[in-house]
């Protein structure tokens, strides 16, 4: 079934990074205010809320976050539900919002995500993140999150000749793009040499191959076609959405050089939108690790399997390239507050598509794809978006 009624009419994020002295409720409320009242959308118009948070139980000893967060943000009383799919929590909340609008149940809903990660020790965060992998059969022998993507990297290097330098180039690009993004955690360029600093986290992945630990929140407002006109002349339509799952553990995957959930979710989204990768002007993909961006760029069909690294080397995925990827800086340099990430990706696409990405504006911006990945790739959500006048 095609999507024909879902519009993004506003989108905002807080700064990502170590937000000292700011709790999850406060950052959530800031994102909501920016996406509602500050964008000319009264809070009383919001009829339901779909919230992504990953693991506040372990990070800040707090469950049942949806009513808690919306209460502080002035939306008390609304139906509010939390969606958890590890790093894809935000995008699964977004899909619930899409379904709520398409079904006709609501005209206007809030989709938001948040995570507070820096108030506990790095060890505690590592332990919390490990909960997104298969505890019984993989984490319990000492496999870590970077380890999962390192195993994929080794397979990709062997099969296609991808190198540590190729991966480092993804980090250099991310930092370059984030250097002009005032909301990014790292607003500083890095050299290739620095990206290659041999501080191994999980060989062959090094410190600069990994996204950081971050705090942050993001929010968007979705409305029906009829209602959208009240808020903006330039809504962004969500025209395709796909979601798929895969085994949690890597040993049950037939392919290690491609993520089957990404391939499936992309196929569903493209078919729904009646478009293909050639129709996408740019993409925002889940670069939790540099290798993840390379593989995602192949899985979404931008490049043939094995040619993702070449595309980075040749600058095709640079902001001014033919197929820009993560033009604002990605998870790698903007930060990765887990529950907020999937919503933030939609914020980035919205800003780019309406031409308000400032110094990070891509040259062509009619249609784009977002790819949000959960945990080891056991969940993937792909959405295709197009500006209403395109």
């Amino acid at each position, binding site marked *: 079934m095609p999507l024909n009624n879902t519009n993004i009419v506003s989108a905002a994020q807080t700064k990502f990074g170590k937000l000292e002295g700011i709790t999850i409720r406060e950052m959530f409320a800031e994102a909501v205010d920016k996406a509602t009242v500050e964008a000319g959308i009264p809070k009383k118009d919001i009829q339901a809320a779909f919230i992504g948070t990953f693991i506040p139980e372990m990070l800040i000893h707090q469950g049942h976050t949806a009513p808690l967060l919306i209460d502080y943000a002035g939306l008390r009383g609304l139906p509010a539900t939390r969606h958890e799919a590890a790093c894809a929590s935000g995008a699964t909340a977004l899909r619930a919002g899409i379904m709520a609008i398409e079904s006709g149940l609501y005209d206007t809903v809030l989709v938001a995500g948040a995570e507070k990660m820096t108030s506990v020790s790095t060890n505690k965060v590592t332990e919390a993140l490990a909960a997104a992998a298969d505890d*019984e059969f993989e984490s319990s022998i000492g496999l870590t999150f970077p380890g999962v993507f390192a195993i994929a990297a080794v397979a990709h290097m062997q099969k296609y000749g991808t190198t540590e330098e190729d991966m480092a180039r993804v980090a250099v690009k991310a930092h370059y793009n984030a250097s002009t993004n005032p909301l990014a955690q790292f607003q500083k360029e890095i050299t290739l040499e620095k990206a290659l600093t041999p501080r191994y986290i999980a060989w062959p992945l090094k410190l600069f191959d990994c996204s950081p630990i971050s705090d942050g929140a993001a929010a968007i407002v979705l409305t029906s076609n009829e209602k959208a006109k009240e808020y903006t002349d330039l809504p962004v339509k969500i025209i395709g959405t796909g979601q798929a799952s895969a085994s949690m553990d890597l*040993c049950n995957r037939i392919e290690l050089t491609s993520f089957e959930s990404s391939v499936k979710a992309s196929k569903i989204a493209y078919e729904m939108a009646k478009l293909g990768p050639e129709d996408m002007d740019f993409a925002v993909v889940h670069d939790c690790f540099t290798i993840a961006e390379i593989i995602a760029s192949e899985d979404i069909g931008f490049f043939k399997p094995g040619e993702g690294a070449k595309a980075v080397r040749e600058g095709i995925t640079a902001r001014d390239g033919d197929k820009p990827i993560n033009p604002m800086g990605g998870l790698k340099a903007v930060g990765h507050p887990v529950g907020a990430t999937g919503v933030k990706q939609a914020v980035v696409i919205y800003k780019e598509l309406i031409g308000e990405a400032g110094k990070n504006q891509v040259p062509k911006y009619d249609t784009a794809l977002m790819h949000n990945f959960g945990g080891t790739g056991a969940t993937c959500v792909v959405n295709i978006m197009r500006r209403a006048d395109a």
Partner: protein
Amino acid sequence: MNDKSNKPTIEKYKQFIQEGKFRAFKCSDCGAVIAPPLGSCYSCGSSKMEWTEISGKGRLVSFTVIHVAPEEFQDEAPYYIAIIELDEGTRVTARLSGFDPLKPEDVKLGTSMELTFIESPKGRKYLAFKAA
């Protein structure tokens, strides 16, 4: 032992490893060997499982060396974690034994491997493989 008590469970699968034995699930209907355990066979859809012995032979599919480890594994780092495809067709995630963790460049994918076990400083056994 009657049928009921011999039904494979995750708990027993893990207990076997602690005893230095590797037993896999086997689909009673099509014979597919399944490890780690699954509640349903992806070859035929059956949920009837029994235990099977495995050869312990396989090949190295991919690997990493964990340098930054969770707290409970910190005194073991750096250590190898690998994906091994068993001759029986199923793949498991396991430790590697007998390879220098500081020379991962020397490890070749596709290498023939055989089953062994590694014991952690705290006395926990991990499923592990060494070059055959």
